[in-house]
């Protein structure tokens, strides 16, 4: 199992999904009865710090998505969002104090208290 510290980032030409996060995505997709799926990771405007992470389980990539395959999961990132996400590691934190999916984003200069939005 891959563990992640907040300081850990990956090369800026990709984003990384940890094995634990990939496992959770696979479970959510199975719960939805999806056999063919991928994880769409994007950024949209809004949230306390201005930019908010979004995660969706989808059937396939859109035309302008960058496709990254890790732990047998296809990760789709819209090219416009990739500039904000390059080098990010996506992990999953469970347990009583867990926060669910967590982003370690080297581009984030500031994040809000709950961690769902950031500014660059």
């Amino acid at each position, binding site marked *: 199992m891959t563990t992640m510290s907040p300081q850990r980032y990956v090369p800026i030409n990709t984003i990384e999904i940890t094995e634990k996060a990939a496992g959770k995505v696979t479970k959510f997709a199975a719960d939805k009865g999806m056999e063919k799926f991928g994880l769409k990771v994007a950024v949209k*405007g809004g949230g*306390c710090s201005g930019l908010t992470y979004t995660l969706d389980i989808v059937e396939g990539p859109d035309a302008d998505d960058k496709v990254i395959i890790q732990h047998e999961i296809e990760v789709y990132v819209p090219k416009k969002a990739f500039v904000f996400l390059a080098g990010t590691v996506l992990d999953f934190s469970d347990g009583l104090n867990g926060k669910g999916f967590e982003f370690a984003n080297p581009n984030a200069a500031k994040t*809000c208290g709950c961690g769902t939005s950031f500014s660059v």
Partner: protein
Amino acid sequence: MVAVLRSPSRCLDPDVSARHCESHKQLQTPISTKADQSQLDALENGCGIFLWDAATIVQHSGPDAVDLLHRLTTKDLLGVGEGQSRRTALTSDRGRVVDVFLMAHIAENQLLLVSDSPNSERMVSAIDYYTIIEDAELNDLSETHTRISLIGPNARRTVESALNTGLEPDTTARIDFGDDPVYVISDTSRGPGIEWIDVIYETAIFSRLVTAFENSGGTAVDAHNFELFRISNAIPGSDREYGEHANPIEAGLLHLIDWDKGCYVGQEVIARLDAYGKVQRNVKVLKSQVPLDEGTKLTGDSKPAGVVTSASQLKPKSGEYLSLALVRKAFLSSETVLDADGTAATVS
């Protein structure tokens, strides 16, 4: 003593400028230092017509436009349906005011964003920055369109008569004025009891439209008397009371914050300011025997007490000049006398 109120180049397009300047002298007439009581009466008791020399007018279109603005700004906008409008504040991630604008939902997936700021680039660039995966597009109409505000208890009647139509209260409507579309937008956010209607149209029909409003009982108001009205009603102004130097609470925009709407840009900072009582200043009307100057520092008990943000140079009927200031918390009580660079200014 005298001032020309409008730049002739912005009056209207070159083809009709001579006609306009002749027939709407009151919009350009030099003024004295006394307030024009007829103009103030129109704003308070009738219908004043104020033509904005420059204002931000932006078309925002696309299926994600409302949702994006809802996520970025202080007001809950998801419930603003077609034919409705709401004023909201766009704040930075530091909780400072970037701009304040009226979002008018004019048609399906079509919005008009109207702000008092002459710098349209500020709103456009801020919204554009946050438009990433959203299907929404901005089109700056500020150079091709003009804004008139009709203010006063007879504003709606004047618009109805001039445009030969009926208007529901608090409505946004597209109305054909001859062959030209005119957008009529109610703004209920300016202050208790203030009826305010914004009219947006292509600049080319300016002269015809103003004449129609005047013939329907409206009175043209110049910039100085409008400013006096704004100050006397403590209506915050762009780059005066609000702007990058102020948060929306201290700038008199508390009514534009929906506390239970969830996240927007700057929400965490603004919520913290409110929750911990960290707001240090408030907008107050000051009275003085001589006119103050904008930017004048205020002191009270030899301590910094605030800054003058808007100052009318007109003497109203009451005989006391009026200004707006961001006044520090310790000096907010009514009748507190502050020093404005040697002039006594009383908090009202």
